[in-house]
């Protein structure tokens, strides 16, 4: 049989029919490679285009073109509340236009943001977990830490207020009542600034909620956790900014506020450049300076007033934490 095939091939036989299939095959490969190359080339354009578009759109406003820094990419690890509240969507374009830096904001919990800083995966942090921040600075993971702004945490829950905390002045007493009534309480449990504050409050009242049937952990960001709380009719602790920005879809009311322990303070931290050779120290410095500059502070103070009837954040550059606490 094999002999037959051999002789058949040698004789030429019908092979031209097979060869006819070849040209389209080669064209197919060529076309695929071409499309592939185009697709990959196209892929790079969205990364490059924002600087061009942002400059063209803002040229009408300010006739200056942004400067071109040597190392233009900055990774900012920022707490979810600054993203979910929309504040960064306002500030970052201004910063990019002014300085030419291209900021990549990664919105994560403050705990994760500091881990990123520690590993040198981020250049600059915007976080709100003061106790962890102090440790972060003591371990010299950061080179500077500046107070940017504050707002406050609030205890939210269903309007029916099953734990009757509405008229309780102290946040600690309110949390005690929630625990005593065994009403569902949602924890972010993502080591975020909000989560750290919540655990601090539980510790202060001497209750360990872990594993209790009324204590559930979402493991998600503030916006998502508020959605869950709203659906389940549960209590939770949130920063005021995220609550106000997402309130329209929630059936949750503010039931506890005003206790000094609920103060929510945001700092900007420049990551130590010894963490990685890739740290953009100049960019981090520029961003930190921008956040505490007079103009930015004014923008922060005004943010949300038109939309929510009140400011979401209060600018604090130059103040000390002690001054805020005494307020």
């Amino acid at each position, binding site marked *: 049989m094999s002999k037959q*095939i051999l002789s058949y091939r040698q004789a030429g*036989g019908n092979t031209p029919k097979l060869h006819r*299939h*070849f040209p389209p095959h080669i064209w197919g490969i060529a076309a695929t490679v071409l499309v*592939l190359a185009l697709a990959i080339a196209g892929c790079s354009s*969205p990364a490059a285009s924002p600087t061009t578009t942002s400059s063209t759109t803002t040229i009408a406003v300010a006739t200056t073109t942004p400067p071109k820094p040597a190392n233009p990419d900055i990774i900012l690890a920022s707490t979810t509340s600054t993203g*979910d509240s929309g504040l960064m969507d306002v500030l970052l374009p201004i910063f990019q236009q002014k300085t030419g830096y291209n900021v990549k904001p990664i919105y994560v919990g403050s705990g994760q943001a500091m881990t990123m800083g520690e590993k040198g995966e981020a250049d600059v942090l915007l976080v709100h977990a003061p106790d962890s921040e102090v440790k972060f600075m003591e371990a010299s993971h950061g080179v500077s830490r500046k107070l940017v702004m504050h707002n406050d945490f609030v205890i939210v829950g269903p309007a029916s207020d099953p734990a009757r905390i509405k008229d309780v002045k102290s946040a600690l007493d309110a949390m005690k009542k929630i625990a005593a009534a065994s009403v569902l309480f949602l924890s972010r449990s993502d080591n975020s600034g909000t989560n750290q504050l919540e655990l601090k409050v539980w510790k202060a009242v001497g209750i360990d909620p872990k594993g209790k049937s009324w204590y559930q952990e979402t493991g998600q960001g503030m916006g*998502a956790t508020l959605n869950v709380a709203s659906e389940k009719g549960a209590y939770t602790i949130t920063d005021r900014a995220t609550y106000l920005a997402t309130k329209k879809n929630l059936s949750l009311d503010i039931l506890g506020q005003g206790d000094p322990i609920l103060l929510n303070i945001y700092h900007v931290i420049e990551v130590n450049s010894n963490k990685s050779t890739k740290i953009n120290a100049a960019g981090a410095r520029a961003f930190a300076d921008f956040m505490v500059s007079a103009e930015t502070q004014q923008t922060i103070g005004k943010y949300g007033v038109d939309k929510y009837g009140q400011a979401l954040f209060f600018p604090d550059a130059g103040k000390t934490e002690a001054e805020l606490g005494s307020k």
Partner: protein
Amino acid sequence: MELVFEGIGQAFWLLVSGDTAAWRVILLSLMVSGSATLISLCIGVPAGTWLALSRFRGRQVLVSLVNTGMGSPPVVVGLIVTILLWRSGPLGILGLLYTPYAMVIAQFIIALPLVTGFTMASIQQLDPSLRLQIMALGASRWQMVWLLLRETRLPLLAAVMAGFGAVISEVGASMMVGGNILNQTRVLTTATVMEVGKGNFPLAIAFGFILMVLVYLVNSLLTHVQQRSRTR
């Protein structure tokens, strides 16, 4: 329910009003997932063909690996790619994390086993005597492979659809390696998750709706090609 209609209305408004940010999100979704699918085809089809036609020690292990890979959780792929691309990671020197390229890499890894597996399965389901017959007609090895692939073009298009469908609708890996950065790495799935987090449900539904329409359009195009070649 009215949220859904509000969302669909918003989707149309985003498309018609030429909202540049929204269009960029849509185009980036198509480009990232399209490139990832194309690259996985370039490697997955030859790999699948080879696995289907060759006999060697350890082939069984490789086939099992491919089959496992077909169900690999995108979020795990995302985590591994993130660790590799970290500044402190082995590929950190490339500076690819939080860029569209990182998303293409992650999606390619998700799509590759699907394409390889589908190719392998479709070639193996051909009548083995067809191979003999082609060889008997005096075809070279490459000619035989080409003819077999031609025979399996219907299931191969299914491989394209499965690969593309898996990566464009994937969110865990894209979020992790891309970072959901506006105008840079925000795609339809990550934008949807973000808007849900913000409580902007109509906008979330709008992005979700656009995504579904997009997947439908791409698949109907592929189906058209597939069914046309069937009747030929």
